[in-house]
Protein backbone atom coordinates (compact mmCIF):
# COMPACT_ATOMS: atom_id res chain seq x y z
CA UNK A 1 0.00 0.00 0.00
CA UNK A 2 1.18 3.52 -0.70
CA UNK A 3 1.94 6.13 1.94
CA UNK A 4 2.97 9.76 2.18
CA UNK A 5 4.99 11.42 4.91
CA UNK A 6 5.14 15.12 5.64
CA UNK A 7 7.69 15.23 8.44
CA UNK A 8 7.04 18.79 9.55
CA UNK A 9 3.77 19.74 11.22
CA UNK A 10 4.63 23.41 10.77
CA UNK A 11 7.11 25.45 8.77
CA UNK A 12 7.87 29.06 9.69
CA UNK A 13 9.48 31.43 7.22
CA UNK A 14 9.91 35.19 6.90
CA UNK A 15 8.24 36.98 4.02
CA UNK A 16 10.59 37.25 1.05
CA UNK A 17 12.64 34.22 2.05
CA UNK A 18 12.56 30.94 0.15
CA UNK A 19 10.36 28.17 1.51
CA UNK A 20 10.45 24.39 1.34
CA UNK A 21 7.71 22.00 2.49
CA UNK A 22 8.92 18.41 2.57
CA UNK A 23 7.19 15.29 1.28
CA UNK A 24 8.37 11.72 0.91
CA UNK A 25 6.34 8.84 -0.43
CA UNK A 26 6.24 5.08 -0.67
CA UNK A 27 4.53 3.40 -3.61
CA UNK A 28 4.87 0.28 -5.74
CA UNK A 29 5.99 1.29 -9.18
CA UNK A 30 5.95 4.79 -10.57
CA UNK A 31 3.94 7.53 -8.85
CA UNK A 32 1.75 10.40 -9.79
CA UNK A 33 2.40 13.14 -7.21
CA UNK A 34 0.31 16.14 -6.25
CA UNK A 35 0.39 19.17 -3.96
CA UNK A 36 -2.76 20.81 -2.63
CA UNK A 37 -3.28 23.88 -0.44
CA UNK A 38 -6.10 24.42 2.05
CA UNK A 39 -7.13 27.82 3.37
CA UNK A 40 -9.28 28.13 6.51
CA UNK A 41 -12.81 26.79 6.11
CA UNK A 42 -12.19 25.92 2.49
CA UNK A 43 -11.64 22.72 0.51
CA UNK A 44 -8.31 21.76 -1.00
CA UNK A 45 -7.03 23.62 -4.04
CA UNK A 46 -4.81 21.89 -6.59
CA UNK A 47 -1.33 23.46 -6.87
CA UNK A 48 0.70 21.20 -9.12
CA UNK A 49 1.35 17.63 -10.20
CA UNK A 50 4.16 15.40 -11.40
CA UNK A 51 3.18 12.86 -14.02
CA UNK A 52 6.31 12.19 -16.08
CA UNK A 53 9.15 14.04 -17.73
CA UNK A 54 10.98 17.00 -16.24
CA UNK A 55 11.64 16.51 -12.54
CA UNK A 56 10.97 20.19 -11.78
CA UNK A 57 7.28 20.96 -11.94
CA UNK A 58 5.88 24.50 -11.89
CA UNK A 59 2.43 25.22 -10.56
CA UNK A 60 0.08 27.92 -9.36
CA UNK A 61 1.02 31.03 -7.35
CA UNK A 62 4.75 30.69 -8.09
CA UNK A 63 5.11 27.30 -6.41
CA UNK A 64 7.24 24.51 -7.82
CA UNK A 65 8.18 21.01 -6.74
CA UNK A 66 11.08 18.73 -7.50
CA UNK A 67 10.58 15.01 -8.03
CA UNK A 68 13.54 12.95 -6.79
CA UNK A 69 13.09 9.29 -7.57
CA UNK A 70 16.15 8.05 -5.71
CA UNK A 71 15.09 9.83 -2.53
CA UNK A 72 11.35 9.20 -3.13
CA UNK A 73 10.71 12.86 -2.41
CA UNK A 74 8.55 15.60 -3.86
CA UNK A 75 9.36 18.75 -1.89
CA UNK A 76 7.34 21.91 -2.51
CA UNK A 77 9.30 25.12 -2.97
CA UNK A 78 8.86 28.80 -3.61
CA UNK A 79 11.72 31.29 -4.12
CA UNK A 80 10.09 34.16 -2.20
CA UNK A 81 7.33 33.57 0.34
CA UNK A 82 4.31 35.83 0.77
CA UNK A 83 2.23 36.29 3.92
CA UNK A 84 -0.76 35.16 1.84
CA UNK A 85 0.94 31.77 1.31
CA UNK A 86 0.17 30.94 4.94
CA UNK A 87 -2.08 27.87 4.79
CA UNK A 88 -2.15 24.09 5.19
CA UNK A 89 -0.34 22.12 2.49
CA UNK A 90 -0.98 18.49 1.56
CA UNK A 91 1.12 16.16 -0.54
CA UNK A 92 -0.62 13.21 -2.23
CA UNK A 93 0.41 10.17 -4.27
CA UNK A 94 -1.33 7.85 -6.70
CA UNK A 95 0.40 4.77 -8.17
CA UNK A 96 0.51 4.77 -11.96
CA UNK A 97 -2.13 2.43 -13.32
CA UNK A 98 -4.04 2.17 -10.06
CA UNK A 99 -6.90 4.45 -10.97
CA UNK A 100 -7.67 7.73 -9.27
CA UNK A 101 -7.05 6.74 -5.67
CA UNK A 102 -5.03 9.38 -3.85
CA UNK A 103 -3.27 8.87 -0.55
CA UNK A 104 -2.66 12.12 1.34
CA UNK A 105 0.01 13.11 3.82
CA UNK A 106 -0.98 14.54 7.17
CA UNK A 107 -0.43 18.13 6.08
CA UNK A 108 2.08 20.86 6.92
CA UNK A 109 1.05 24.25 8.19
CA UNK A 110 3.05 27.04 6.57
CA UNK A 111 3.33 30.29 8.52
CA UNK A 112 4.84 33.25 6.67
CA UNK A 113 5.61 36.19 8.94
CA UNK A 114 5.94 39.80 7.76
Amino acid at each position, binding site marked *: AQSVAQPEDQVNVAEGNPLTVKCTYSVSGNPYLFWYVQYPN*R*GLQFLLKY*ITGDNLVKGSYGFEAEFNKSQTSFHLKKPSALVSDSALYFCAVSPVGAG*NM*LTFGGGTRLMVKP
Partner: protein
Amino acid sequence: GAGVSQSPSNKVTEKGKDVELRCDPISGHTALYWYRQRLGQGLEFLIYFQGNSAPDKSGLPSDRFSAERTGESVSTLTIQRTQQEDSAVYLCASSLGQGGNQPQHFGDGTRLSIL
Protein backbone atom coordinates in the same frame (compact mmCIF):
# COMPACT_ATOMS: atom_id res chain seq x y z
CA GLY B 1 -21.37 26.96 -10.93
CA ALA B 2 -17.89 26.10 -12.07
CA GLY B 3 -16.73 24.27 -8.97
CA VAL B 4 -17.75 21.39 -6.76
CA SER B 5 -20.72 22.41 -4.63
CA GLN B 6 -21.49 20.88 -1.22
CA SER B 7 -24.49 21.40 1.03
CA PRO B 8 -25.14 22.16 3.75
CA SER B 9 -21.97 24.05 4.61
CA ASN B 10 -22.59 23.42 8.31
CA LYS B 11 -24.72 20.85 10.08
CA VAL B 12 -25.31 20.51 13.81
CA THR B 13 -27.31 17.55 14.99
CA GLU B 14 -27.94 15.43 18.06
CA LYS B 15 -26.28 12.10 18.64
CA GLY B 16 -28.34 9.28 17.19
CA LYS B 17 -29.90 11.29 14.37
CA ASP B 18 -29.35 10.52 10.68
CA VAL B 19 -27.71 13.11 8.41
CA GLU B 20 -27.48 13.45 4.66
CA LEU B 21 -24.75 15.42 2.93
CA ARG B 22 -24.91 16.45 -0.70
CA CYS B 23 -22.25 16.92 -3.36
CA ASP B 24 -22.73 18.38 -6.82
CA PRO B 25 -19.60 17.67 -8.91
CA ILE B 26 -18.17 19.67 -11.77
CA SER B 27 -20.15 18.98 -14.94
CA GLY B 28 -18.48 16.31 -17.06
CA HIS B 29 -16.41 14.86 -14.21
CA THR B 30 -16.99 11.12 -14.13
CA ALA B 31 -15.13 10.43 -10.89
CA LEU B 32 -16.41 11.52 -7.46
CA TYR B 33 -14.81 11.04 -4.04
CA TRP B 34 -15.80 11.54 -0.43
CA TYR B 35 -13.23 12.23 2.29
CA ARG B 36 -13.40 12.94 6.01
CA GLN B 37 -11.10 15.46 7.68
CA ARG B 38 -11.00 15.50 11.46
CA LEU B 39 -9.85 18.64 13.22
CA GLY B 40 -6.18 19.31 12.55
CA GLN B 41 -5.70 16.11 10.59
CA GLY B 42 -5.28 14.95 7.02
CA LEU B 43 -7.86 13.45 4.71
CA GLU B 44 -9.34 9.99 5.20
CA PHE B 45 -10.70 8.41 2.03
CA LEU B 46 -14.29 7.20 2.39
CA ILE B 47 -15.73 6.18 -0.99
CA TYR B 48 -15.06 6.61 -4.73
CA PHE B 49 -17.47 6.55 -7.69
CA GLN B 50 -16.30 6.17 -11.29
CA GLY B 51 -18.98 6.44 -13.96
CA ASN B 52 -21.41 3.53 -13.77
CA SER B 53 -18.93 1.15 -12.14
CA ALA B 54 -19.53 -0.28 -8.69
CA PRO B 55 -18.20 2.21 -6.11
CA ASP B 56 -15.06 1.58 -4.07
CA LYS B 57 -16.40 1.57 -0.50
CA SER B 58 -13.18 0.41 1.12
CA GLY B 59 -12.79 3.58 3.21
CA LEU B 60 -16.21 3.65 4.87
CA PRO B 61 -15.55 3.33 8.63
CA SER B 62 -18.74 1.47 9.56
CA ASP B 63 -22.05 0.25 8.17
CA ARG B 64 -23.64 3.45 9.46
CA PHE B 65 -22.03 5.20 6.49
CA SER B 66 -23.38 4.87 2.96
CA ALA B 67 -23.30 6.90 -0.24
CA GLU B 68 -25.14 6.98 -3.52
CA ARG B 69 -24.58 8.59 -6.86
CA THR B 70 -26.95 8.62 -9.80
CA GLY B 71 -25.02 8.36 -13.04
CA GLU B 72 -22.42 11.11 -13.21
CA SER B 73 -24.32 13.68 -11.19
CA VAL B 74 -25.14 14.46 -7.59
CA SER B 75 -23.96 12.24 -4.75
CA THR B 76 -25.30 11.96 -1.21
CA LEU B 77 -23.39 10.67 1.81
CA THR B 78 -25.64 9.37 4.59
CA ILE B 79 -24.59 8.76 8.17
CA GLN B 80 -27.10 6.87 10.28
CA ARG B 81 -27.34 6.97 14.06
CA THR B 82 -24.62 9.60 14.30
CA GLN B 83 -21.98 9.40 17.03
CA GLN B 84 -19.80 12.16 18.44
CA GLU B 85 -16.74 10.71 16.71
CA ASP B 86 -18.46 11.44 13.38
CA SER B 87 -17.85 15.16 13.96
CA ALA B 88 -15.57 16.30 11.14
CA VAL B 89 -15.48 18.15 7.86
CA TYR B 90 -16.72 15.98 5.01
CA LEU B 91 -15.10 16.88 1.70
CA CYS B 92 -16.25 15.91 -1.76
CA ALA B 93 -14.04 16.01 -4.86
CA SER B 94 -14.48 15.24 -8.54
CA SER B 95 -12.10 14.62 -11.42
CA LEU B 96 -12.09 13.96 -15.14
CA GLY B 97 -11.85 10.39 -16.39
CA GLN B 98 -10.22 7.43 -14.83
CA GLY B 99 -6.54 8.21 -15.09
CA GLY B 100 -4.67 8.71 -11.87
CA ASN B 101 -2.97 11.72 -13.38
CA GLN B 102 -6.13 13.82 -13.17
CA PRO B 103 -6.18 16.31 -10.27
CA GLN B 104 -9.14 16.20 -7.94
CA HIS B 105 -11.20 19.36 -7.49
CA PHE B 106 -12.63 19.85 -4.02
CA GLY B 107 -15.72 21.48 -2.63
CA ASP B 108 -15.55 23.59 0.53
CA GLY B 109 -16.90 20.77 2.64
CA THR B 110 -19.70 20.21 5.14
CA ARG B 111 -18.72 20.82 8.75
CA LEU B 112 -20.64 18.26 10.80
CA SER B 113 -20.98 18.67 14.55
CA ILE B 114 -22.62 15.97 16.66
CA LEU B 115 -23.83 17.16 20.05
